[in-house]
């Protein structure tokens, strides 16, 4: 890889960035922590932690309800966070942003609300073979209920989507396409814009699962050309329990609510309930206000650092790590597509990924091992599981060196 040439002149100073992450400055099992499980969740910078604490210490109240000052502040903070998400995604308006618990809930919302009204018997929902379980199971549930069919576009041996097969599966019965933008198990970056354009030609709406993308590449939903976009805050240096769904305003307006309760109503009598407008129509119950505030702070932080710089930095690490791991005898990379984000999945001859994970943990290196909630991907590559290192803005080449050194230890132990 020609990674260094991609680095901008004002390359990101990861070592300095680390200072902002309190959790990174500890030892685990007697060694300095090397955190390479960012695909599962990223760590949180001081700014995010402080924003959440400050919210609880100064502004905490319920939103959209009270006339008192704290409620007004909480509402302003919550709706301010919605504005930040809207700008971050390039949405036309903040009313197109629905707060959810995360990507999974956002996809379920679309499956329940949009899916149940637009997908009928004999219709099809099209996904890819590398989806996370959260972008498989909601559609299976919908298809089972409606007598519809889930179609799966295949991937090649490198883990890239076979666009020809995808295009031929996009048929007259296809009512919705739902694809990830970056694969959590393989690191593959999908040609999301091309997919959206193809679907648009045929009048099929597209949901893009951006869970693994938002922290690694700038996203603009309008230039992407999708109809729904889902992501989680906790993979974007924000808190767990908060995420968002972006949907085209006219689609959201036409969709029925999916959960009933407070907040999502305009008026309630026992005879009839009038629903609130979007996005509130989709936000029944008291939301995770502190989570939204934290997410807003995370977006501010990421924007200040710059996603272009983060992306360049992570590509440098990915190239460096790919090269180094390829040099370890017995190591095989799983997921070698040309377009990849900061994920490195691998297996080792004669060593189960769980054992790799335990040995690495002993060396202070935190990685993910298992099927990564993508069992069909594991089946596709004929492995029960993989070991996965995934990078974030605060990782350094020293972290990669620690990883590679630990992988050598695995080899020694199981030789």
């Amino acid at each position, binding site marked *: 890889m020609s990674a260094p040439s991609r680095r901008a002149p004002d390359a990101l100073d990861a070592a300095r960035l680390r200072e902002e992450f309190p959790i990174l400055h500890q030892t685990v099992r007697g060694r300095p922590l090397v955190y390479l499980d960012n695909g599962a969740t990223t760590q949180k910078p001081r700014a995010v932690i402080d924003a959440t604490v400050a919210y609880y210490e100064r502004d905490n109240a319920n939103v959209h309800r009270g006339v008192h000052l704290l409620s007004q502040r909480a509402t302003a903070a919550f709706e301010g966070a919605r504005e930040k998400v809207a700008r971050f995604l390039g949405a036309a308006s903040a009313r197109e942003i629905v707060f959810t618990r995360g990507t999974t809930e956002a996809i379920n919302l679309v499956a329940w609300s949009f899916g149940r009204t637009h997908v009928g018997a004999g219709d099809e929902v099209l996904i890819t073979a590398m989806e996370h379980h959260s972008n498989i199971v909601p559609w299976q549930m919908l298809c089972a209920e409606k007598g519809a069919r889930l179609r799966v576009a295949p991937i090649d041996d490198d883990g890239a989507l076979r666009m020809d097969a995808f295009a031929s599966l996009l048929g007259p019965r296809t009512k919705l396409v739902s694809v990830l933008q970056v694969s959590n198990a393989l690191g593959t970056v999908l040609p999301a814009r091309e997919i959206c354009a193809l679907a648009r030609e045929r009048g099929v709406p597209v949901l893009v699962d951006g869970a693994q993308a938002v922290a690694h590449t700038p996203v603009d939903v309008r230039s992407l050309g999708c109809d729904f976009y889902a992501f989680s805050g906790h993979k974007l240096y924000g808190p767990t329990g908060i995420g968002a769904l972006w949907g085209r305003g006219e689609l959201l307006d036409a969709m029925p609510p999916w959960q009933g309760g407070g907040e999502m109503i305009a008026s309630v009598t026992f005879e009839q309930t009038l629903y609130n407008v979007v996005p509130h129509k989709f936000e029944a119950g008291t939301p995770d206000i502190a989570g939204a505030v934290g997410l807003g702070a995370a977006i501010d932080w990421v924007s200040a650092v710059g996603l272009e710089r983060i992306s360049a930095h992570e590509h440098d690490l990915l190239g460096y790590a790919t090269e180094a791991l390829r040099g370890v005898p017995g190591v095989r990379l799983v997921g070698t597509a040309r377009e990849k984000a900061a994920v490195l999945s691998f297996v080792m001859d004669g060593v189960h990924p*769980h*054992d790799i994970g335990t040995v690495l943990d*002993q060396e202070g290196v935190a990685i993910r091992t*298992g099927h990564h909630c993508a069992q069909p991907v594991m089946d596709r590559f004929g492995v*029960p599981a993989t070991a996965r290192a995934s990078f974030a803005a605060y990782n350094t080449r020293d972290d990669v060196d620690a990883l590679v050194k630990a992988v050598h230890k695995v080899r020694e*132990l199981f030789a």
Partner: protein
Amino acid sequence: MSDLRELYQSTILDHNKKPRNFRTLAPATHHADGFNPLCGDKVSVWIEVKDGVIRDVSFQGSGCAISTASASMMTESVKGKTLAEVETLFRRFHDVVTGEIGAEPSDDELEALGKLAVFAGVREYPARVKCATLVWHALRAALADGAGADRPVSTE
């Protein structure tokens, strides 16, 4: 201080590389499958029981070093034992691998386990306890349900 060699003792590494009784068994009087949905480890156990004694036992499956070695060593340990003895051995094994982190098992506990005492180090790795116990759960399910165990026993 836990150390990798405490977990991956040479006996464990040896059984992982060369699992004993790694085969099917026909005819078997008892059979069950075990599955750990978290990591995808799978194990199948076949047992031949006669007059309340395990005459033969075998396993097949795929998993990590801990689960493979545990299965291999379990088959060696339970062969020739009465069902009551097997249950006692399971209890002891379970108590040792799920014991409190940092607390050393007593010499008596370890002695009662025989060769299986090499798994004592697993208690320092809570995420790996199920790797060691999966095959035992499959064994007990097989003995409880007989040949008709049609649902795999799960660690979750």
